[in-house]
């Protein structure tokens, strides 16, 4: 049985940055990737906006990931592609080893490790998850599928496009379709505000005169074999459909951009505690599962991020946590739980060890102007001129702020109007 200091599941930005960091600290790791090549999602992202923080340059996804892959090759990080992990279970050799089983064209892979770094990313939500009825027609794609068609395989999937959901990938694909000669009939968003970043609303929709229909949802697909149109309906403040407001929009292609959800099936099988608001695992500030020792989670498998820079930062943070565990072994730790207050939709990590500076990633429920994010128990607050659900908030709590907190068992975060 081959043993590694760490096994990384998923060779995207989070997994590769974790493996690089571990290598720099002198630990060996094996990256197991199910796709044909390492790199993950950025391989199909030909638009700029990657790496501003991590590399200090504005790169396209493809440029960014090839830099990272270059570093992985230079450092001799070991990886296997086309290898799909089917099972993670406690090893028969006993604690703390975990046994990872994967299928690949080279045969069955069985390896053991005391530490698993899980960076399997997120998957797109599909047409079946957003309440759309109608036949199973051809011409329906997720935004990522459309992106792979166009930007890896050079195929335009249709000529009259309706995009469901205004998340960033959908907005970016609206621009790609417009540029490649297709007509984008509309981008349809159920919420009263757009799901994507302001930058993308301006540069992807306004630049190309693409209509954004807010407070509207698609209820039915029309067509015989290929989709011929979508029936939309306006919704009220509570997202209930308004009778009589149905409208047909003709199109030959529907692109679903209804957000991502962390890929956590393997972890659920192990019984890790999950957070219903992130749909990812519950972790401490080392990004280690709160209920399963030696499993660290980073990137979109942990929480759906807006920026690859945050994904890389989480990968490095997980590697940091893993190396401390490898050096020092298991230490008893007490945690402070973060309680979500007013206008906080999600926050990661959910628990703090208070042993180090903690980087927190959070999202609000609704847009608000002139607010402060408050941590009452430690009297810390951060002012923001505006907060929006689409823009993840990243903030750091200093170790010195957290020291007094150890006597308590909960820290409340809330968004207050100034």
């Amino acid at each position, binding site marked *: 049985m081959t043993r590694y200091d760490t096994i990384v599941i998923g060779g995207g930005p989070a997994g590769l940055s974790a493996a690089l960091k571990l290598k720099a600290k002198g630990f060996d790791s094996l990256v197991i990737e199910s796709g044909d090549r390492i790199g993950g999602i950025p*391989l199909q992202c*030909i*638009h*700029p906006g990657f790496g501003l923080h991590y590399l200090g340059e504005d*790169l*396209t996804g*493809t*440029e960014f990931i*090839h830099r990272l892959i270059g570093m992985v090759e230079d450092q001799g990080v070991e990886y296997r592609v086309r290898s799909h992990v089917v099972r993670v279970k406690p090893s028969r050799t006993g604690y703390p080893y975990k046994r990872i089983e994967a299928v690949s064209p080279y045969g069955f892979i069985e390896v053991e490790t005391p530490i698993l770094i899980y960076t399997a990313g997120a998957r797109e939500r599909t047409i079946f998850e957003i309440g759309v009825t109608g036949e199973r027609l051809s011409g329906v794609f997720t935004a990522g599928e459309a992106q792979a068609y*166009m*930007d*890896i*395989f*050079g195929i335009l999937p249709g000529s009259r496009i309706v995009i469901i959901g205004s998340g960033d990938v959908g907005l970016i694909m609206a621009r790609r379709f417009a*540029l*490649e000669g297709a007509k984008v009939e509309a981008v349809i968003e159920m919420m009263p505000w757009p799901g994507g*970043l*302001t*930058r993308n*609303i*301006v*540069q992807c929709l*306004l*630049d190309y005169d693409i209509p954004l229909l807010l407070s509207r949802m698609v209820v039915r697909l029309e067509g015989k074999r290929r989709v011929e149109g979508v029936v939309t309906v306006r919704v009220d403040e509570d997202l209930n459909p308004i009778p009589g407001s149905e409208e047909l929009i003709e199109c030959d292609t529907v692109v679903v951009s209804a957000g991502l959800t962390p890929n956590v099936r393997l972890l659920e099988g192990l019984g890790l505690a999950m957070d219903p608001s992130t749909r990812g695992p519950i972790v401490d500030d080392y990004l280690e599962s709160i209920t399963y020792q030696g499993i660290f989670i980073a990137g979109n498998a942990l929480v759906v991020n807006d920026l690859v820079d945050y994904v890389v930062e989480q990968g490095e943070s997980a590697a940091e946590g893993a190396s401390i565990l490898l050096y020092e072994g298991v230490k008893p730790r007490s945690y402070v739980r973060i309680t979500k207050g007013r206008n906080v939709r999600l926050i990661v990590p959910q628990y703090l060890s208070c042993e180090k500076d903690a980087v927190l990633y959070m999202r609000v429920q609704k847009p608000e102007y002139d607010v402060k994010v408050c941590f009452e128990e430690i009297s810390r607050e951060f002012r923001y*001129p*505006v907060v*929006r659900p689409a*823009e993840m908030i990243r903030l750091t709590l200093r170790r010195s702020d957290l020291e007094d907190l150890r006597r308590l068992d909960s820290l409340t975060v809330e968004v207050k109007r100034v």
Partner: protein
Amino acid sequence: MSIDAVERRLTCIVCPIGCIVTVRVSGDRLEASGYLCSRGLDYARQEALDPRRIAITVVKVRYGDIPVVSVKTDRPIPRRFVREVAKLAAYIEAEAPIELGQILLEDILGTGANLVATRPVRRIE
């Protein structure tokens, strides 16, 4: 008589606040309002007088391990050229192997920007 002033409303994208900046351009004079900081004014001036973007698209590849290579202009070009770049890119063909950053077309449409590959492509015979 002066030419009628053109008034436009722009959403500033410099920071997440997203100020709505109203810009009036008449001749070479520009008035702007609604911005909260000087970066908003700079953005509005640039955007009203000379909006620029990095153009991205794909170019066909012969003998590549994938059929298209993603490309971009290596600097921002006037926005009105972005569609033209995409159209032009549809008519050219590159040959693998292609390196990351390789120039596929120089000084595209006289903008001074080069079209560069943003992904390496391996050669397959």
